């Protein structure tokens, strides 16, 4: 028991090292990150202004409600993008940097290595999402009197576990195909985008796509965030959105690790574990 505890502690220290390294790397390029943040703000605003655009062309909508809904969708989508990017970088970026062989030789279990990547991605992504939400909300006269921001934060945090699981599955793609794997990773992101109701209700989708939406954690994350911020739902009222996220998380994390281990096995068998260029 004591030995197990020591091993776990050592693994956590190793995962902490991965988090620390990502922090150093992010800090190294913080000004470039800020520039990128401005791009994200601009991109998000482009989407949220659609609500005002519809009204100005004669559409009869509740601008406040539609703008808030689009803002939540855009922020969650941007957050998901950060998570996926960090996880894809687990392989793709290390391959480009030339450090991939050493990372895969390190005496750290793959689960803890990926957990380190995931923890940093969640922390950084959530922080960025909060700033993005505030920055964009300032452009609009949005009224959110009953908003339960804490509830929305909890929903997104729980959804992150599932996102990490899916991200781990896609991060293996550059391991299998150094040339095209990274691009293929966007397939998962795109699929989540189209079925999860990021910018429109899931109910507008064809039946078979609505069926797929049931398996997407983004569907529940978006619904939960909107219920909390726009509907002021309490934690207990958010439970119908939370439990599917927990269930999907329980399923996707081990599946993600298994898929990654198979990808690693394939790469080591076929000599794909090497730097690009």
């Amino acid at each position, binding site marked *: 028991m004591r030995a197990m505890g020591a091993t776990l502690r050592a693994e956590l220290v190793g995962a902490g090292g991965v988090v620390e390294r990502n922090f150093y*790397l992010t800090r190294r390029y913080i000004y470039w990150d800020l520039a990128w943040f401005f791009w994200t703000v601009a991109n998000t605003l482009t989407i949220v202004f659609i609500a005002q655009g519809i009204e100005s062309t004669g559409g009869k909508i509740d601008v406040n409600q539609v703008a808030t809904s689009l803002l939540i969708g855009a922020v969650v989508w941007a957050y998901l993008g950060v998570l996926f990017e960090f996880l894809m970088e687990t392989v793709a970026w290390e391959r480009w940097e*030339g450090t991939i*062989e050493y990372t895969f030789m*390190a005496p750290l279990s793959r689960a803890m290595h990926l957990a380190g990547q995931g923890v940093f991605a969640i922390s950084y992504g959530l922080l960025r999402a909060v700033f993005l939400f505030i920055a964009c909300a300032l452009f609009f006269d949005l009224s959110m009197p009953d908003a339960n921001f804490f509830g929305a934060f909890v929903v997104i945090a729980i959804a992150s576990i599932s996102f990490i699981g899916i991200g781990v599955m896609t991060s293996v793609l550059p391991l299998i195909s150094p040339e095209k794997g990274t691009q293929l990773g966007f397939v998962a992101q795109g699929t989540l985008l189209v079925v999860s109701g990021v910018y429109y209700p899931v109910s507008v989708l064809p039946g078979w796509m609505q069926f797929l939406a049931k398996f997407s954690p983004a569907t529940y994350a978006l619904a939960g965030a909107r219920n909390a911020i726009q509907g002021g739902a309490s934690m207990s009222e958010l439970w119908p959105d939370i439990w599917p996220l927990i269930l999907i998380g329980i399923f996707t994390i081990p599946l993600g690790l298994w898929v990654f281990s198979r990808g690693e096995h394939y790469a080591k*068998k076929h000599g794909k574990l090497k*730097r690009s260029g």
Partner: protein
Amino acid sequence: MSEPSVRVEGLLKVFDVPEREAGLKAAAKGLVRRKTREIRAVDGISFSIEPGEVVGFLGPNGAGKTTTLKMLSGLLYPSGGEALVLGLVPSKRERDFLSRITLVMGNRNQLQWDLPALDSYELNRAIFRIPQAEFTEIRDELIELLGIEDLVRKPVRQLSLGERMKAEIVGALLHRPQVLFLDEPTIGLDVTMQKRIRAFVADYNARFGATVLLTSHYMADVEALCERVVVIHHGQILFDGALSGLADRFAAYKTIGVALENGKADLSRYGEVIHADGDWVTLRVPKAETSSVTARLLAEEEVLDLNVEDPPIEDVIELVFAQERPQAPHESE
């Protein structure tokens, strides 16, 4: 007798490499029926290395050296045979194995390009679970030994190749590995830097009794560090033995250097004159005739000075690499 640090038995690595003829027709056909060729990168090699030994692993480009080192490091799964390092199977990725070996590749980096080396060392401390006090002591000692105190605070990408390699070596040795796989650690470095790295490796081996398997295209590295060499070509071992024995086995000639009293005599009747520098003439003679030619020179000429040597190791290696493997690769569809 102690257990070997590295034991390799019939180690095999086969890659299926896609290939096709040029042209649109062949490209279209390849979409339906992919043609591959089986390449035996490492073809059933066997050797073992005792603890504390420094062994040169030589071969031309594509001989199978890096593939072997990657299999010994657990980065590549063998197609067959067995490899044991410190009694453990590399492909199993056991913690006890990974924390006792290191791999330094001259054309790769473990240090993050954008960060000062010190930050990457911190990651290694966490991953290898080196206690803080021990880590600081080892890190500072290595930094001092390699003389890079002023460099470790700069982003790695601002370092020269030689400086980067020294910083890489510090990172690779922080956990005091018992087995070092060094894959061309001096590639691209100037002579002074090469010497410094050689001296460092020799010192590390002497102090910690570490086992070293070294590949290098610089024979000076091998001559300075390795008493034993394993020569691999086309994935097969051509020679495994003392470096001094390499010339005996593969060189068909020796060189005789001679200086004569009269200086200008024509010595071509004794052997092939390969070099003449002032009074000093170097002859190449068949190995079997070395004694008789030497005796004739001494009897027939007024010899001031004479020495008999094996050919330079570079020439011997060139001879070894010139050997061809008879076996043709298999083809499959």
